[in-house]
Every structure is written in C-alpha cells, then in structure tokens.
C-alpha cells in the first residue's frame, strides 16, 4: 500500500464507537484477536477512483489496527490492457461487447508480466475484480488461501468472458460477491459480502450549512430550487442520458434542477467519451448542470448529496451502487433502478423507491418532490438501514469472518 494512502485515512477504530456503539467495536476486537498477525495481501488494479479503491483505502488501515497484517498492492498495466479490462467489465455486466482473441492475448500477456514481477507474500491473497484474476496461477507455488472478490454485477455475464475468467476463478479457495443474484455455479465456496461506506470519511461526515453553501456557490447552483442529484462516474452503465430524459419529464410539472456530477477512474478509459455525450445531450436544457468533479473532491460530493432534495441512481447495471448508501446515510430520499445490489439497499417503499425504466424513475421523482413527508420518512428509514447493514464496521466484521471461515468447513464455527 502506498504510504500516502495509509496516512490519508487514519481514523481510529474507536472513533466509530460514537456511531455504532462500543459493543460492536469490542466484537471486532474479539475477532481480530483470533487473526492476529495474519498476512492479508489485497490486490486490485488502481489506488484511486471507483468504489474498490475507496473501500480498500479505508479497510486496510482498520484491519491493521485490529492486529492483522493487511497490505494493498496494485497490478501494472498499459492502456491496451485497461481497454481490454474495461471491455471485460462491460461484458460481465451483460453488455454486448466484442472480445477478440487479441484482447484475450493482451490480457494474458500483461497478467503474465504481473505474475512474474509482483511480490506476493501472504497467508491470504485477496484478489479484487477481474483485472488481477490470473495471479492465482502462482497458488501451487505460494500456497496460502486465495479469495477472488468480485465487485461487479455478474448476474448475466457475457458467456465468452465469463468462461475465460472462470478457468481462473475455479482455482481460488473462495469467491465473494456483493449480491445473491451475482452468485454462479462454482466448484468453490461463495460468500456474500456487501460493500460499505465509511461514515467518518470526507464523503460522508457531517458538514456545516456554510460548507454546503460554499460548494453550491462554487458551481452556481440555486439552493432554493429543488435539486435532483445523481453522483456517479461518467459511464454508460450509469445511464446518464436516461437521467436527463427522466428529468425532462419531471420538469414539465415541477420546477427543479438536475445535477449530474461525477469523476473518472484511471482504469476506465471510456469516461471522457461518455462525458462528451452527456454534455451534448444536456446542451440547451435549462436547469441541468453536468459537473466533472476532480479526484479527491469528497467534501464537494458530500455537500451535493446533502443539498439534494432527491438523490437518483438510474443505473442500467450496478455492482452495488455505494452512492445510494451514501445518500441514505444522509437521510436523503432515493430513487434507484432495481438492478445489481441496489435492491439490497432500497427496500421499495421502505427505504426508497425502485424503478425499472425512465418513466418509472420520473414517476418516482415526482412522487418524492411532491410529498416531502413521504420523502422524509424514506430518508429516515434509509439511514437506519445503512447504519445496520452498510457501514464499514459491518464490512470489516464480515471480512474477518471470511478469513476465519476459510479455515473451517462447518456451518457453525466455535472459536
């Protein structure tokens, strides 16, 4: 793990007591005692951008505080490699994608280079997403336990890509998915661990009204006008065009504004293209703001979510959709597509509203903008739901349990 990543996120585990209670932290310490000194090597493809890097940057220091020797490394790859892995990503999400033999060759070649060059030394190798999946080829030599952590919605994967990856996935000791629908018929054990948000991070901590106002002023947003906000990377799978279409339907009857804000990720070369298309589509539509937020602008994202009247996440495919948990944590009413891991966060009509189309999203937005009491109740329930199920402390606990479960076959383990 890069030193600056360690120093950047140095919340003490005890700081979470005020949110989740001392007994929860005590339980984490109890589990940590059973894993003291265990070496866990996390490997993914980027240190910044996207949910995986964000979660690892927070979880690894906390694991260390619990006495576990957790580390984080990334594989190396050139543009050609990341073009291919982006295609894999889309294909695993079920999008039509041409994968040529050359693409597979590029993937294999870069992976081999990483296999040869990477320093691997751990008791548990925790490999995140498809990019480093081939590292498992060193399992016979290194021994230890190998886990493949899939953060992607693979409920309907492109079969060619899945079959290609599956030959490596089967060599792992276990796979971890974010939602039940992502599970596959595999000869190895599969666990379900949802991702999480960190309530103490800049993206989720409490902000003063002055801080929120400053961000709104910076981007020229009118705080008096109801605000629909979608925060996500500029990616076709987040359906930013569908968001604009839904907004147009809502705006016919309700005065409001739309903020489409997002950034880019180093392992996603498609972002710039999508951003251009979004800007082109929104051109000339009043009250639509497209904001390219630079990396590290977590406070700004936090402020936009807190300023929102309704938060929207109209993804076509979604690994999990942490922006929803972020919004729910801020007690915001959320309208989201019923895809991927979103239904785990949005229990329809209890913690938010689910939609299946542009029309559905528009209808739900209108309902929430016109019924502040309903919106407030959903937001309140949503915060409780996140507190109980999607905070980093729950995530940490399940990773600890996973490391323990790897050494036990039975359903009930006595420590």
């Amino acid at each position, binding site marked *: 793990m890069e030193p600056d990543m360690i120093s950047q996120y140095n919340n003490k585990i005890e700081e979470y007591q005020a949110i989740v*209670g*001392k*007994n*929860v932290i*005590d*339980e984490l310490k*109890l*589990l940590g005692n*059973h894993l003291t000194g265990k070496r866990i090597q996390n490997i993914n493809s980027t240190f910044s951008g996207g949910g995986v890097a964000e979660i690892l940057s927070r979880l690894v220091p906390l694991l260390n505080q619990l006495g576990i020797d957790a580390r984080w490394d990334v594989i190396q790859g050139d543009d050609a490699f990341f073009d291919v892995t982006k295609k894999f990503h889309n294909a695993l999400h079920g999008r039509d994608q041409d994968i040529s033999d050359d693409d597979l060759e590029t993937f294999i070649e870069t992976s081999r280079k990483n296999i040869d060059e990477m320093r691997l030394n751990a008791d548990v190798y925790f490999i995140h997403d498809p990019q480093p999946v081939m590292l498992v080829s060193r399992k016979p030599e290194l021994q230890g336990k190998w886990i493949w952590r899939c953060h992607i919605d693979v*409920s*309907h994967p492109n079969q060619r890509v899945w079959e290609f990856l599956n030959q490596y996935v089967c060599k792992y000791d276990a796979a971890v*998915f974010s939602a*039940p*629908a992502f*599970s*596959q*018929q*595999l000869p190895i*054990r*599969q*666990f*379900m*661990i949802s991702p999480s948000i960190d309530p103490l991070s800049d993206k989720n901590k409490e902000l003063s009204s002055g801080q929120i106002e400053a961000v709104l002023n910076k981007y020229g947003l009118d705080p008096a006008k109801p605000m629909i906000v979608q925060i996500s990377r500029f990616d076709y799978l987040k359906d930013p065009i569908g968001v604009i279409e839904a907004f147009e339907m809502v705006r016919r009857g309700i005065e409001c504004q739309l903020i489409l804000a997002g950034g880019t990720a180093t392992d996603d070369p498609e972002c710039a293209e999508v951003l251009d298309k979004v800007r082109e589509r929104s051109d000339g539509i009043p009250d639509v703001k497209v904001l390219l937020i630079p990396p590290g602008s977590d406070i700004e994202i936090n402020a936009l979510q807190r300023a929102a009247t309704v938060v929207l996440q109209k993804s076509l495919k979604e690994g999990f959709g942490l922006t929803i948990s972020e919004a729910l944590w801020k007690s915001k009413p959320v309208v989201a597509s019923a895809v991927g891991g979103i239904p785990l966060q949005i*229990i329809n009509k*209890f913690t938010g509203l689910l939609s299946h189309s542009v029309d559905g999203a528009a209808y739900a937005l209108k309902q929430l903008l016109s019924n502040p009491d309903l919106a407030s109740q959903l937001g309140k*329930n949503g915060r*409780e*739901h996140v507190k*109980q*199920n999607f905070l980093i402390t729950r995530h940490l*606990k*399940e990773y600890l*349990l*996973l490391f*323990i*479960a790897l050494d036990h076959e039975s*359903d*009930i*383990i*006595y*420590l």
Partner: protein
Amino acid sequence: MIDWIKENWIILAVPAAVFLAFCIVGLWARRVLYNRLDKLLVKSGWGGREVLVQTTRGPFFFWFMLLGAFAALKISPLPAEVQVLSEKIITSVFIISIIWLLIILTNRLLTIYLAEIKSPKPPGKFVTTGVRVAMLLLGVLILADYWGWPLTPVILLLAAAILVAVVASRDTILNIFSGFEIAAARNIKEGDFIKLSSGEEGYVTDMTWRTLKIKATDQHTIIVPNNKLVRETVINYGRPLKRASKPFHFYTRLHLKELTGLKARNLTDLVNVLKAAPDSVTYYHTHHFLEEHQFLTPEPANDFALWVDDSLDEHVLSEKLANIDTFAYFSLDALNSMIVSVIEQYMADNPASRLVKGENDFHFLKSNSVVVPTPYFALDLREFVEVLRRITMDSLYYHIFESRLRLQKRSNDFSVWMRDSIGEHDLADKIDNLVPYTSTIEAMRSFIIQNIEKRIK
C-alpha cells in the same frame, strides 16, 4: 595525669557518684513504676499496653541517666561556659529522645488502631509517615527555639516544603479526604453492586481511603479513585443477590452469508432445492430478516413468503408461509419439512404453478455462524441484567434464537440458566414464553431487562 587524679579524685568521684545514684534510682523507679503501670493497664484491657510498656522502658532509664549527667555536671568543677554548653547538649538530647519516643510510640499505636478499621481501609503508610514527619518538624522547631536560632527562615522553609508536598500529592490528599467522606456517609460497603455514571460497574471488592476496587462483569478489576467516586453519580444496588451454582458465560455469534449458487424460478424449483437443502439454508431464510431489518415494524415475514408474494403473485401461499409459527419448532429439519409440506399442498391444490416475474429468481443462501466467547460472565441476576444492557444484538440473537432452534436446546439459554443454576423458575418461564419472532431484538432485550429488574427490586 595519674598524679592529677590522685590529687583531685574527690572532685571527680562526687559527680560520678551522683550520676551512678541517678542510674540506680532510675533502675529502681522503672521497676516499681512499670510493675504498677503494667498491672493497671492489664486491668484496663487496653490493646496498646504491650507497645506502651516495651517502647517506653528503655527511654525511661535513659532519661534518668540524662538527669544524672545533668546533676553531675552541676556539681562538677568544669568552667561555667563548658557547663552551659554541656547542659544545652544534654537538654537537646533529651528533646530528641522525647520526639524519637513519640514517633515510635505513635507509629506502633497507629499500626494497631488502623488495622482495626476494616472498611474503607485507611492509608496506613501515608498516615504513619505523615505523623512521623509532623513530629520531626515539631522537634526541629523546639530545638531551633531552644538554641536561639532564627525561626522565621525555618518556618518559611517548612511552609515551602509543605506546599510542595501538598501540590505533589494533591490527588492522594483529595482521594483521602474523599475516602473520609465515603466512610462517614456509609453509603457504599464492600459487597455492594454499584454503577457509576461514567459506566464502571460491578461488585465492590475492596475499599481503602484512597481507592475503591470493583470486580466488573468481564472479570476485570476496576480501581476507582475515591475523588472520582464522590464526583460521579453512583447507583448502589446493594448486597449481592442469590449466587448461581454456575456462572452464565455470554457468547456472541457473528454470521457470514454463504451463497449456494442454487436458485428457483418457480414453486417446483423452490421445493426441490428446499428438500435437499442443509439446515443452514432453512435457518438463513427464516431468520436473517430479524437482524437486518430491525428498524422495520412490523418486520417482514420469512424470505419464502416474501418471494412467492412479490415474484410469483401467489398471495395465498405467501400468507400460509408467513403464518408458519417458527416458534413452535425445535429443529430446523422439522421447520423445513413444514415449509415444504405447505408448498406441496398448495401446488396440489393449484396445479398451474407460475413462473417468476422478470429476473427475481430466489437465490438460496446459507448462514455460517462463528460463535465467539465474550469476556462477560454473570453470577447473579444483577450482573446478568447489567451485562444484558451492553451486549450486542448478535449476542442476544445467539442466546435467544440460535440456541433454541439451530443448536436444538429447545429453550433459550437465559431461561435454561435461570432455571438450572439459580432456581428462578418463574422468570425463566416468562422469558421462555416470549415469542421472539413477533418483536424486534431490542424489544426483547427491554422485556427481559424489565422482568429481571422487577424480580430483583
């Protein structure tokens, strides 16, 4: 020299004889006086008799020797200035011996008397050291006055030293004063169960004038300075309750969801997978919502009922599945059989089985439980209820749900312990009769706490 002695022997012999006479008188007086004093003290039954007699016997004779020396000096032919100096030295030695005797005597007597104070235990060493220092200071002042030394700088020096000592041992002094206050108030005794507003709680095992020791429910000893104790709000629950024959050890159970990769698209799939499913699958789908949806009231029904309703539009079957009384079963196998038979009966009555809407397949998961001992133990109902307030929902869940059904103990752990180890049958029955599936875990916690509080009031 010998010639001089021969010529002046009488000048030397008289003072020596006087000194010797005083010594002899001293020995005689000590014998007579101490015999009488001892008899008197024996009659009085005073506990310090031995200390007083043994400590003062030596100095008593020594003082006669000093008196003899003083008298001998007076009749000696020594020059006046030598006589004055010698008198001053003898008087100083007398003062020092008096102070020395007082120090030893008070220390010994204090040791006897302080040992008799059981609770709170006085800080013996602190008191005896304090008395010793005070006596020494008194001696120094008397001597300084006697020798005509200027007292002001000495007093200033002493005041400064006292001030430094007070500042340095400020906390100790505050603790001792607080200990005095606690002792005088008699609100807390050893053996009481107390709870401080800062969170510390447990049985008081030891009280001194400086600190109070509490044995916490996690078996750790907490040392609370008396000064903190008087500043906090303290709830004293009083004497220990009936002790259990066996302590209750609290465990917690943390669960990890394992995906089976199996799914159902219609009722036939659902039944087929369920028939072959391990207990952990049945357990997961009939229990996980209790933990995950704590904030929803009423809580959702089991996963099977929800799925056939939402995804198959089989509303009647959903109601039948939701109405299965999980509480009535003592094994997951029996519960699984009941679920399967309800679905099969429905399918027999309604042969046109529907296919799932859209992509809402039923995905089978199972629950991996990791059972971890916590540091908390309870040996009576007071300790039990205090631990119950602080344990996690996972721990409560383990003792109420998991033990009863998954571990097939037929009852929750709390009731078993109350019945078998502490003889509280009524309380055990009340908790046993609580149907956990119709209330939240937090509501159950409140119910159990309220009932125990009522019982031990």
